[in-house]
């Protein structure tokens, strides 16, 4: 009799433990999805480095095809420059390549410059494999150092007068678009936009309390 009760008790325990395990796993997955959604909002700006509104560092460099290219400083043609830092070994960067190709085709006064560093041969293979010949492609470590690039892919938007308008880590098409959007609105990052909105809300609430 007791033996039978024990068998039943243990069987019930098994089922309950498995069900609990499944529930906890589902919860952990939901937390993971939430993390994906909230981090980062728009292009993530890493702490330190250059500030939007400052003059972009000026560098005189050569592209891989041997042409001279000036980064930073006022541009005679009035075009904005989007500097995109990437590397042949970064898989997130590869996902962005179709996006920047469509950006290049749509024109709108934007010159896209790709920047990388490291083994030159690997860079040439990368350019060939992904058909990046139409872009000015710079291989220079000093460029990444000058712009304080820590993580890839990293985008920097410089306006025609040579002022840095927006910058950040760009993991998706939305992040890249947020850089261009932030540049147009005169905000450094989407984070700054969100902070401003929040400040406005707080100010409105304070005002309501005072009157």
């Amino acid at each position, binding site marked *: 009799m007791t033996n039978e009760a024990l*068998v039943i008790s*243990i*069987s019930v325990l*098994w*089922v309950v*433990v*498995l069900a609990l*395990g*499944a529930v*906890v*796993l589902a919860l*952990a*997955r939901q*937390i*993971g999805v939430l*993390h*994906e959604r*909230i*981090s*980062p909002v728009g292009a*993530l700006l890493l702490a330190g480095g250059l500030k939007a509104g400052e003059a972009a560092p000026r560098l005189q460099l050569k592209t891989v095809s041997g042409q001279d290219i000036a980064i930073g400083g006022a541009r005679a043609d009035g075009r904005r420059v989007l500097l995109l830092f990437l590397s042949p*070994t*970064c*898989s997130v960067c*590869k996902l962005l390549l179709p996006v920047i190709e469509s950006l290049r085709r749509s024109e709108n006064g934007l010159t896209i410059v790709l920047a990388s560093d490291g083994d030159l041969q*690997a860079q040439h293979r990368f350019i060939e494999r992904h058909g990046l010949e139409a872009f000015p492609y710079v291989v220079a470590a000093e460029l990444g150092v000058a712009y304080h690039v820590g*993580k890839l892919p990293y985008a920097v938007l410089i306006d025609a007068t040579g002022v840095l308008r927006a910058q950040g880590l760009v993991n998706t098409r939305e992040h890249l678009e947020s850089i261009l959007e932030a540049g147009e609105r005169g905000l450094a990052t989407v984070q700054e936009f969100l902070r401003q909105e929040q400040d406005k809300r707080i100010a409105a609430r304070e005002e309501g309390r005072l009157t």
Partner: protein
Amino acid sequence: MNAIDPVISHILRGLLALVFAAAAYHKLSGLRAFRDTLANYQLVPEILLWPMTAAIVAIESAVTVSLLWPAASTAAPTVAACVLAIYAVAIAINLLRGRSSIDCGCSGPAVRQSLSAGLIVRNITLVVCCWLITLDTVARPLAGLDAGTVLFGMVGLFLIYMTSNRLLAGSVQLRELISHDQ
């Protein structure tokens, strides 16, 4: 003389088989992505990336099958322990290089999981499981209830394994989020 209960041994054996089956399945479902992940570890020369990818998937599949095969009762856990130890060393090297932001390739391309010390602890725990199943088992007759214990025990532990993997990935993301807010 070390000897453990056969039920414990079977549960751990089943757990390791499930862990390796899941690992091989994730890699097979995104071979290209796994090749890129492997490249990011920067330990394998580019020319060997594809052969290495194929070898890893083949070894993981072979370990899964042979763990359940009684004839390979010590060989399979030994190979499994070596594989886990090599992964732990690869993760440790990249952590020391400061390349913690690369994807670990643990749960397939769908779940991004950065490297962390927690992964090394996870692998050491699994290596200990490998060692436990190489031990001799106590000879005792197995009842029907034992079959249930083995089945539910290994599935339950596997759920816990997957949950801890998710939580490890989440804790890294949470840290990034907090440091970004400050």
